């Protein structure tokens, strides 16, 4: 009996804890594969220790032959260290947004904005009756929904790294002390990736479903841009992040300098990283009849476009890059994603799916007002009112101008 009570109390305590600190379970789940991987690597080492030579082959060419060597102890330390650091990183990444998310959810719930232009007095019962789509369904306590993607990647990385280390230990043991004889065929690399994928799938399952951000059902009170029926408008602006440009250039320089010295396969990491960072260091953001488009400043591709049909409402708001998104670049967080190049003014889209998409850009209020107007227009369009046909008229007009222009 006493035991029973003890368990119940424990459960209740756990629940209370979960509602106050929803991130804890997720953080544990996120970090868990790394200690497990450490244990696997350590066990393998202990089992093989007698057969392992002093110096291990630790780096292999594409044909499977060894071209890099290090001491057995150093290799084990490097393996365990890498896994522990990765574990801490993944745990932290899942933990950090939890704090920002929670406060965001609470603030949103408190604001309780109205929906679809229905007067505020009627809004509450109206949107309660509208069902799950617009009801504020997410409890503040469960706000941490999903670092599911992060956790999945974490498991994959843990599986991949652990397999690589264990496989290296085994081939060294199999070579029977002749370190140069140790070979790691490419098939082992494929097996490592396979292990990573399986581990990632496990992580995906363990992470559980992402809880969407509370839908505040806001609408109607967002700014609009006065636009005549026949008028067409487009807004665009470039943004750039000096920090990311500098980081990208440093990485690129590092890659180009180390390339000739250490081999281009070693330099490919920094170079690819540099290109990724540089690709996100500057962006052009455009809002027009097609929705919101984000592209590199000078090239039309790669392109991310959110069509008007997917936008419920646009607004401008202040963003704290580190606290809300855990960093800079293209950020994905539970219930929200977007391009975060700095803190400060950002265009915030509330999507039909209930999620939020942000781009840190100046003059966001104008873009938001324009998008809201265009969304209104698109909503009115299919009902056969005057805006629809007019909208489609613009296209032909544009092509009509072609002969005139080329002549």
């Amino acid at each position, binding site marked *: 009996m006493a035991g029973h009570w003890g368990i119940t109390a424990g459960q209740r305590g756990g629940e209370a804890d979960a509602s106050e600190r929803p991130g804890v379970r997720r953080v544990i789940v996120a970090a868990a594969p790394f200690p497990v991987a450490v244990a696997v690597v350590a066990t393998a080492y202990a089992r093989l220790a007698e057969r392992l030579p002093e110096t291990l082959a630790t780096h292999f060419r594409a044909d499977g032959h060894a071209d890099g060597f290090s001491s057995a102890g150093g290799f084990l330390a490097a393996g365990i260290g890498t896994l522990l650091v990765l574990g801490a990183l993944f745990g932290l990444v899942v933990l950090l947004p939890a704090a920002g998310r929670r406060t965001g959810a609470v603030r949103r719930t408190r604001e309780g904005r109205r929906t679809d232009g229905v007067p505020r007095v009627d809004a509450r019962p109206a949107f309660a009756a509208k069902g799950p789509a617009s009801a504020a369904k997410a409890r503040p306590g469960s706000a941490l929904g999903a670092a599911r993607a992060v956790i999945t990647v974490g498991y994959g990385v843990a599986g991949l790294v652990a397999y690589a280390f264990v496989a290296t230990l085994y081939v060294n043991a199999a070579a029977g002390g002749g370190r140069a004889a140790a070979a790691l065929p490419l098939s082992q690399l494929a097996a490592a990736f396979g292990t990573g994928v399986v581990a990632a799938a496990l992580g995906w399952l363990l992470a559980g479903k992402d809880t969407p951000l509370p839908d505040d059902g806001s609408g109607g009170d967002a700014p609009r841009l006065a636009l005549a029926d026949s008028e*067409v408008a*487009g807004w*665009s602006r470039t943004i750039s992040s000096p920090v990311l440009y500098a980081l990208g250039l440093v990485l690129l320089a590092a890659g180009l300098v180390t390339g000739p010295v250490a081999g281009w396969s070693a330099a490919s990491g920094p170079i690819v990283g540099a290109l990724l960072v540089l690709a996100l260091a500057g962006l*052009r953001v455009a809002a027009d009849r097609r929705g919101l488009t984000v592209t590199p400043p*000078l090239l039309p591709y790669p392109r991310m476009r959110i069509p008007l049909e997917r936008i419920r409402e646009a607004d401008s708001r202040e963003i704290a890059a580190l606290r809300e998104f855990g960093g800079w670049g293209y950020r994905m967080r539970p219930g929200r994603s977007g391009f975060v190049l700095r803190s400060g003014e950002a265009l915030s889209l509330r999507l039909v799916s209930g999620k939020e998409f942000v781009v840190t850009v100046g003059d966001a209020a104008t873009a938001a007002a324009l998008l809201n107007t265009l969304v209104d227009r698109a909503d009115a369009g299919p009902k056969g009112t005057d805006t629809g046909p007019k909208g489609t008229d*613009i296209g032909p007009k*544009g092509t009509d*101008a*072609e002969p005139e*222009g080329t002549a």
Partner: protein
Amino acid sequence: MLVRIDPASAVPLGDQIAASVRGAIADGSVRAGERLPAARTLAGSLGVNVHTVLRGYQRLKDEGLIELRRGRGAVVTGAASPALARLTDTTAGLIAQARALGLSDDEIVTLVRTGLNGPLGAG
């Protein structure tokens, strides 16, 4: 930068685009050194032909507000101050008003030259 055009208006679309950009420079939302969207991008955005946008850009270039460089696109010049953009706008208004009164181009130039030689409407 917000560009708005009205296909139903009598004003050529290229001029409307130029007017939008000029307005953006005038109110300071586009600054010197800033790059305008590529003509193709803006054309896609507004659903007009690329040449229409290029006509508008050419006009802004003639006014000294932007530079057009191959490969670099349209960049707002250092000389393009908000005040200059406003002045260009005012001039456009002057011309429109004069034409509405039925003045010929020569008559408008004469009017401006007279103004340069001595203050108009002062006496």
